[in-house]
């Protein structure tokens, strides 16, 4: 397992995303009101760039016409076929058991807590003052 510093926290505001590349894999980093999550930028259905899709809330209904809207900005819809994926878990709404996008563990670290080697490995300058998104892969 190697730790990868992939973004600064302040470049991904709440409700936004950033797509990064780690060891040849594209990963989407999402900020849900201060909580950060990472999922693969590859839809398990046909391989589209899932993380470039529209960020939406969860729509449910107990009966026709009774719309229930919750979890604003916590799902992403694939730009190709519209399948919804839970950004927190990577599970699809329609088939959560079998159709999932890989999710990655990440940590938010203060620049001062990052090791020398990690700091050197990244392509952008890292400073001790800032907070960083770190993925272990």
């Amino acid at each position, binding site marked *: 397992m190697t730790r990868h510093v992939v973004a600064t926290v302040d470049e991904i505001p709440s409700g936004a995303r950033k797509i990064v590349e780690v060891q040849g894999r594209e990963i989407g980093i999402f900020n849900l009101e201060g909580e950060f999550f990472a999922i693969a930028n590859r839809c398990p259905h046909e391989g589209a760039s899932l993380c470039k899709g529209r960020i*939406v809330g969860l*729509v*449910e*209904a*107990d*009966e*026709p*016409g*009774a*719309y*229930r809207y919750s979890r604003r900005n916590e799902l992403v819809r694939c730009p190709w*076929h*519209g*399948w*919804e994926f839970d950004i927190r878990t990577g599970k*699809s*709404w*329609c*088939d959560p058991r079998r159709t999932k996008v890989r999710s990655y563990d990440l940590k938010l670290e203060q620049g001062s807590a990052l090791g020398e080697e990690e700091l050197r490995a990244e392509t952008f300058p890292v400073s001790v003052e800032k907070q960083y998104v770190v993925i272990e892969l």
Partner: protein
Amino acid sequence: MTTDPSCSAQRFAGAVDCDLHPAVPGMDVLMPYLDDYWREMVAVRALDRLNLSLTSYPQNAPLSCRPDWKPAGAGKPGSSLAAMQQHVLDRFQASFGILNCLYGGQAMHSEDMAAALCRATNDWIRDAWLDRDPRLRASIIVPAHNTELAVAEIERVAGDGRFIQVLLLVSGELTLGRRQLWPIYAAAERLGLAIGVHAGSAYRYAPTSVGWPSYFIEDYIAQSGAFENQLQSLISEGVFAKFPRLRVVMIESGLTWLSGFIWRADKTWKGVRAEVPWVTRAPSDILRDHVRFTVQPIDDPDEAEGLLRLVDHLKSDELFLFSTDYPHWQFDGDAALPPGLPEPLLQKILRDNPLAAYPRLAASVRSTEAEVSA
């Protein structure tokens, strides 16, 4: 003369024939069931001169009556109970037969006239058919374009347990999922009646989605498209979410379009389900729980093989219900179902599936069995 038992009439013994068409011979038989106002209107407005057969089944189209089932005299095909008994009920040793009267009354533009003719037709069906053969059950004909009158007719008739279904045309005035029709579904669910959706149009709109056809064959072939639209409407509008115990029987819908339908409906639902969030399961799952299909006309060239493939794709052997579609010409001889169907599937189609689709039928079987064992 064939001796192959898989082709003989005996293999249908005990069947429930889910689609029989009794014909109203003429306005004269309905007159006793009309009130004074409508009796006078029949004379004044010359309603007795109208044929009132649904235009979807032109009387002289070959499909409208099997040649050897044509009455000898001038009578309409399907107007004789004795002929129906001889041709199908006795010949196939049916345990039950369900009468779906396709009469123009339900398609009249005047809501009141439609309601009056539906009332008269239902009463005539009770007296002239149900009372004369204990195997018979019937659908309630309703003026579906007036929900209040339709519900009133359902409630008026439903006290008689031999009415087991409410009949709607596949092409009426509305897509069938619309909420203004829901009181009909609420009444059906509450009273244990299935909703039967039968091929045919009230011709409020062109019978194809691309305009008026020139020929009967276009109209006839387009029917299955209307069934697809209505099935999708019922699912999308949430009828089955709202009425979880409702059963819908698609009658003369054809079957093979279902394969492409579930593929497209399920796939598309995954992408746009937020539009209809009350559709919480794949359309094919909902269909398996709520919708049934009568088997004639079987639109499959491969005989048993094709039907088995469809059962496999639909992941259910509980969807198809036996029907002869009497007197329409869908098969010859005794080939009401293709030969070579596995016995368990055959029994399901003939009896188990119809009993599961029609709660009132199942109830009368249970009470008969209780009488026998008592």
